[in-house]
């Protein structure tokens, strides 16, 4: 069984792209990215070569928690069958020096604030360019308000 098939089973649909996220033994999701041993640089999503020194990059875990740096809620007709409205953010990851773009939990769209502590979840959200359902990573509040 390939890794992609395992993820299909775990998340209910194939991931929107390979290598973005995975789950640990307890079932908790974490992000996957790249790390360059030469320049100690992290990237997300994974890239085969380091954008700075062009060395090959290793696949590494980037954890599943962070803090919202900025966010918005999109209220117009969404692309890729995403929920309407849907919220997105730039998130500063706790476990890697990266500010990444990601979806936020649409069940509380519009309810996020800069500085909120968030954690990764994965669910079937929207579809791909062909209209087939896809699993996407999204961040939700780590602590209840």
């Amino acid at each position, binding site marked *: 069984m390939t890794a992609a098939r395992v993820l299909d089973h775990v998340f209910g649909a194939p991931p929107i792209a390979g290598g973005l996220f995975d789950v640990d033994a307890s079932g908790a999701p974490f992000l996957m990215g790249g790390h360059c041993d030469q320049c100690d640089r992290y990237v997300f999503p994974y890239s085969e070569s380091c954008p700075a020194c062009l060395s090959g990059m290793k696949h590494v875990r980037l954890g599943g928690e962070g803090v919202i740096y900025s966010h*918005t*809620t999109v209220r117009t007709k969404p692309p890729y069958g995403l929920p309407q409205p849907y919220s997105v953010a730039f998130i500063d990851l706790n476990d890697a*020096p990266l500010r990444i773009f990601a979806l936020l939990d649409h069940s509380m769209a519009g309810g996020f604030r800069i500085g909120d502590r968030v954690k990764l979840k994965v669910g079937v959200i929207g579809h*791909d360019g062909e209209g087939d359902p896809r699993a*996407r990573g999204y961040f939700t509040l780590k602590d209840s308000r």
Partner: protein
Amino acid sequence: MAAAYIIGASTTAFGPQPEKSIVSLGRDAALAALSDAGVDSASVNMGFFANVFGPLLFGDTTIGQDVFGAIGVQRAPIINIENACTSGSSAFHLAVQAIEADAADIVVVVGAEKMCVPTLGLVGGGQSDYASRNGMAAPVGFAMRAARHMHEFGTTLQQFAAVTVKSRAFAAKNPLAQFRKPTNVEEVLAGPMIADPLTRAQCCPIADGASAIVVASEKAARANGARAVRVNASVLTSGESVSAPDIVRWGTDIRTCALAYEKAGVGPDDVDVAECHDAFSISEILHYEALGFCAAGEGGRFVESGASAPGGRKPVNPSGGLLSRGHPVAATGVAQISEIVLHLRGEAGARQTPDAKVGVAQCMGGDKDGDTKSCTVVVLSR
């Protein structure tokens, strides 16, 4: 390095034009620009044509030869350009380089776009891009810049809305603009929310339209006499990927503006009139800061002061900008430069900047890793 001049410029009306094709829009602008320059098509040595959505919406590719063929330019090299919102200004940049390299005497730049069709949704980066597939689209990156600008600098919703109010005030004086009705802060904020905190009137409308410019060598410009406008600098840069992009101190924007000022030997205080890429209200606030018209973080208070409005000390987007004139993507970069040309010649009619000697046109295109993909800044003078 040889000097480059603009000897002709023309822009069509912007807005839905269902009876027009990309080629007919481009032809209209190009013929008017040639006529403005007083040169015939036989003297055109080279052409650059910018378009973004033809391949996606109509399956049309390599359209430049059709546009230039329609204005009687054949055999000469024609190059087709796509560079997101800076497609037109990137085409202009290449035309200037061709003149500066002494590779041509007369080069024509045309940007033409037809995008007012029902199939056009939110404009994003495409299916191969991680961010686009996870909800990044044209308003999203800017809405997050707006939220962060409020958080760090105390910028208010009213200050964002003031950008649109100022834009409509200028557009009322531009017969070619799409939205010409004056508005006010309350009306802007009461409109439907597109991406928090940006309401609809703070997002630029799509449009069909074209703009064209004739760029010439010093020798060819001499015949044009006093109407020729000097190109003091044309700079094109790309964004970068960094670990944690600062989305409210926009490095690529700041760097590109500084490079253009340095190359032209002028500073922000010398600029009499500017066009910038106001795709969203927050965009213009960030560009004031990058252009050095106010300090970092002060863009909201700058627009609120009236400094960039009609009659202000630093008029910005007198054409009405993207917010009111409309944004036919590949035409925009050319139209911005054309607008500055009108002011430097004293031909801008009711919206004329008094005694304009130095003007700047700034443009940006695309989203990548919290930065833009491309940025252009052009400095012109008479």
